[in-house]
């Protein structure tokens, strides 16, 4: 196994068995860090502001007298606190982050740099439009790229994330149905769909009817067709789907849904697999959101922000939300907003779904990413993402069970089930935690729901072959350790992380969601 250590040295030397417990609780560069509430205090501040008396005459008698009770820290303490916290995280910048369906790819720092240009970062959404022509032009450019890459005639930029994009698309579908006199009642959602899909449908007032997957991991076209009818508003289909497979019958599905008077919403979270290889518009879909924070690399930031523009077919375009950018006859860019609506411009729009105009900061980053790759590079992105995933699939399928691998290649992610570890007493979770010790972020676990103990691995195109090989070698070693019954390695994992395995059940049983001063009794323990 020493071959896996890229330094080419034997690391088996002394383990940490003889290491003493430290007095501080720290372990060299792994540093404990209290909460700000435990180290700061209300009178301290890390910002130099003059200490003026608040003039209360014009506060309507509503001055805040009670304490805010938020502690402050000096700047050096603040830097340390958050630096230490940051060091407890894993991140793409540190290594492989193969969360399936999340497209955790390299985040170029060029994008961070351009997004911070004052001309983008320091402009107000309500400035006169003559003073933000560059920003509007940028939005127009981004819109052009998205429409061109998807082959769709219209795009709404404002949705704030993927789920918000879904809402946007489904609202347009509902608006279109209403314009036809009947909103219809039900949306079809395949079983393998992401949770946001059914949740979105419900948010739009639709009931959800689930469609089972075939044993090849795709939508069962016959079952789908059987469900179509006058109350079916449409389908929310993910393509490539969350088993990492391209829905090869998508054209047929679209035709069938259209014939039944419905619309096809495509969840485009996995667009990375096909960008530049095929235009979803050519397959017949009506709406699709694009997670700029996946395919176009705006950073996930530990949970957000994202951006989820939605492209529309010609049939849905009239219902797209406000605001959007257009170029007027004098060659000026302008925002189409409430006032235009009031003036009867764009009358069928379903309206506004967010304050202001969307995630400008993400637009800048995504466009910088697109321009950097260009048409040739984006195509290469899809090819390399798919190549990497298939490489993982093929090298691991002999060691772990890949339920759909016999059906042919996967797209951008490789799906495994826990079949191969049956009887070992170990679970997908245990393997995930052991991966942490090995220096990897685990893959997506227990999703999609269509296979047992799912392990969904999406390497993305920004992994090198050498890094993948190392990862695969480790996975093989772990798989063999499972089979060899090395239970402790898994059950006790992670051993080396800042914390050992966390108790999620206790957290949910008696939720403690904010900090409070410990009881004197408790503190004395």
């Amino acid at each position, binding site marked *: 196994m020493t071959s896996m250590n890229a330094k080419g040295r034997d690391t088996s030397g002394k383990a940490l068995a003889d290491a003493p417990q430290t007095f501080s609780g720290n372990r060299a560069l792994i540093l404990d860090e209290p909460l700000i509430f435990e180290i700061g205090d209300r009178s301290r501040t890390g910002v130099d502001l003059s200490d003026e008396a608040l003039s209360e005459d014009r506060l309507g008698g509503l001055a805040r007298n009670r304490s805010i009770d938020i502690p402050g820290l000096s700047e050096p303490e603040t830097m340390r606190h958050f630096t230490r*916290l940051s060091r407890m995280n894993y991140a793409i910048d540190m290594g492989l*982050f193969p969360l399936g369906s*999340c497209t955790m790819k390299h985040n170029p720092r060029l994008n961070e740099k351009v997004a911070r240009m004052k001309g*983008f970062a320091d402009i107000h959404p309500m400035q006169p439009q003559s003073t933000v022509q560059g920003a509007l032009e940028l939005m127009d450019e981004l819109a052009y790229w998205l429409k061109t890459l998807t082959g769709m005639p219209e795009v709404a930029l404002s949705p704030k994330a993927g789920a918000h994009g879904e809402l946007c698309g489904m609202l347009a579908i509902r608006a279109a149905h209403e314009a036809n006199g009947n909103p219809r009642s039900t949306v079809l959602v395949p079983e393998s769909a992401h949770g946001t899909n059914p949740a979105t449908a419900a948010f739009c007032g639709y009931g959800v009817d689930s469609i089972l997957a075939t044993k090849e991991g795709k939508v069962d076209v016959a079952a789908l067709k059987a469900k179509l009818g006058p109350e079916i508003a449409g389908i929310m289909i993910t393509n490539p789907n969350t088993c990492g497979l391209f829905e*090869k019958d998508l054209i047929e599905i679209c035709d069938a849904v259209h014939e039944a008077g419905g619309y096809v919403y495509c969840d485009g979270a996995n667009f990375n697999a096909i960008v530049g290889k095929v235009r979803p518009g050519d397959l017949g879909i009506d709406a699709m959101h694009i997670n700029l924070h996946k395919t176009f690399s705006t950073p996930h930031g530990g949970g957000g922000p994202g951006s989820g523009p939605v492209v529309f077919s010609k049939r849905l375009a009239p219902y797209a939300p406000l605001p959007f950018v257009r170029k007027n006859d004098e060659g000026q860019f302008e925002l189409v907003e409430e006032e235009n609506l009031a003036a009867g411009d764009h009358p069928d729009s379903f309206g506004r*779904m967010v304050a202001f105009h969307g995630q400008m900061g993400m637009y800048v980053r995504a466009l910088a990413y697109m321009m950097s790759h260009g048409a040739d590079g984006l195509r290469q992105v899809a090819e390399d993402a798919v190549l990497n995933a298939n490489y993982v699939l093929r090298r691991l399928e002999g060691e772990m069970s890949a339920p759909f691998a016999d059906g042919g290649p996967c797209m951008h992610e490789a799906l495994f089930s826990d079949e191969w570890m049956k009887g070992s007493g170990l679970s997908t979770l245990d393997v995930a935690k052991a991966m942490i010790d090995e220096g990897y972020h685990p893959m997506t676990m227990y999703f999609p729901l269509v296979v047992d103990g799912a392990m969904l691995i999406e390497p993305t195109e920004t992994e090198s072959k050498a890094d993948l090989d190392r990862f695969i070698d480790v996975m093989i070693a772990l798989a063999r350790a499972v089979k060899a019954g090395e239970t402790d390695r898994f059950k006790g994992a992670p051993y080396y992380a800042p914390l050992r395995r966390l108790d999620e059940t206790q957290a949910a049983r008696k939720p403690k969601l*904010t*900090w409070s001063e410990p009881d004197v009794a408790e503190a004395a323990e």
Partner: protein
Amino acid sequence: MRYLPLTDTDRQAMLGTIGVQDIDDLFQDVPQAARLDGPIEGLPMHASEMAVERHFSALARKNKAAAHSPFFLGCGAYKHHVPASVDYIIQRGEFLTSYTPYQPEIAQGTLQYLFEFQTQVARLTGMDVANASMYDGSTACVEAIFMARRVTRRKKAVISGGVHPHYVSVARTLTHFTDDEIDAHPATVQQGAPGDDIEALVAAVDEHTSCVVVQNPNLFGHIADLSGLAARCHEKGALLIAVVTEVVSLGAIKSPGEMGADIVVGEGQSIGGGLNFGGPYLGLFACNQKHVRQMPGRLCGETVDATGKRGFVLTLSTREQHIRREKATSNICTNSGLMALAFTVHMTLLGEEGMRRLAAINHNRAVEVAERLAAISGITVLNDSFFNEFTIRLETDTRALVRKMARTKLLGGVSLGRLYPDDGDIERCITLAVTETVTDDDIDALISAYKGAVA
């Protein structure tokens, strides 16, 4: 291509291992007819970092940055000074390039700051608990309306005319297709208390009302005491939802919690965030303990690890889409994590002391500007009370005026005609915000511009 590590040799070797000839063999499921046989048309080829940077510099130069002119815009987005350390912290790769903390053992950095964030937001708003953020204030607001429906099992939301019109639009849009009912009161700009419709709201609450939504300070900058309205809501079994678009105000004025609100939603951009032309921003969402299981969005909670050490995890996820699917409290997944971090860092630097000072400076400067404007004949300051933002009325076309000022490099306020296109009365108003970033020179420039305008 600089972002792609595979070499052609790698690709060849990998295809070999996979057992196919050509990359297109892996795309066999894509209908042949739809496959593109080369780079998509209509787009340029890849570009160097230098070329891309030049392109964006050129675009950025076409915008007038707030820092480069006297700047007085507010209405839901505020220019504040954000310490350089905040931006450094949020750019650290360990925060910037990590995902939602699904593996808590290697995400304590994110989880601990979320726990700190939740606590800060709860205390600031005067509530028991807060979630780990929403997209922005407007979407947090409509989520609160939905939550009130779940809690009260009623469907009518009453919305004050003082609420930001974009927020009202968003609520209308998202409730339009469900069977929710929205009773949105019109905005009124009466002298003394522009946008204040508390009385009308009190009158509107009945046993069908799920909630009343009121903004404080409201769009026009006016501050109201919400206690009476809260009492009325509670009497009728409805929830009071308070919206705060300028969180710095909470350093000077009573928190909505203290005045009896049941849910507080807000736009957190003022702390730690920049203007960013409207996004990404930071949705705040706080409520009381008893409603926790009806909250939308992620929650971080305390627990222990296998050795008994304290740690944090995402919790109560049975409310969320990935577990509950169509029965989830919201469809939200990605939120505003990094903006929440910026908020937490900035708020940690401020502390209570800094928040109070910041608020005092904002308010005092705003009072100064209001008084100087009020002294100009032809200009009426509508507000008796306000925090750092107030509304004036002129007898001229305010949209033209604002555009004219912009040409002389002065961003002198938001002309309300843009937000209330139909309303002749409001169209003659301008709302101005005055923050700590405004200098004495800026104020002088503003005053002389307005003097010129009404002369």
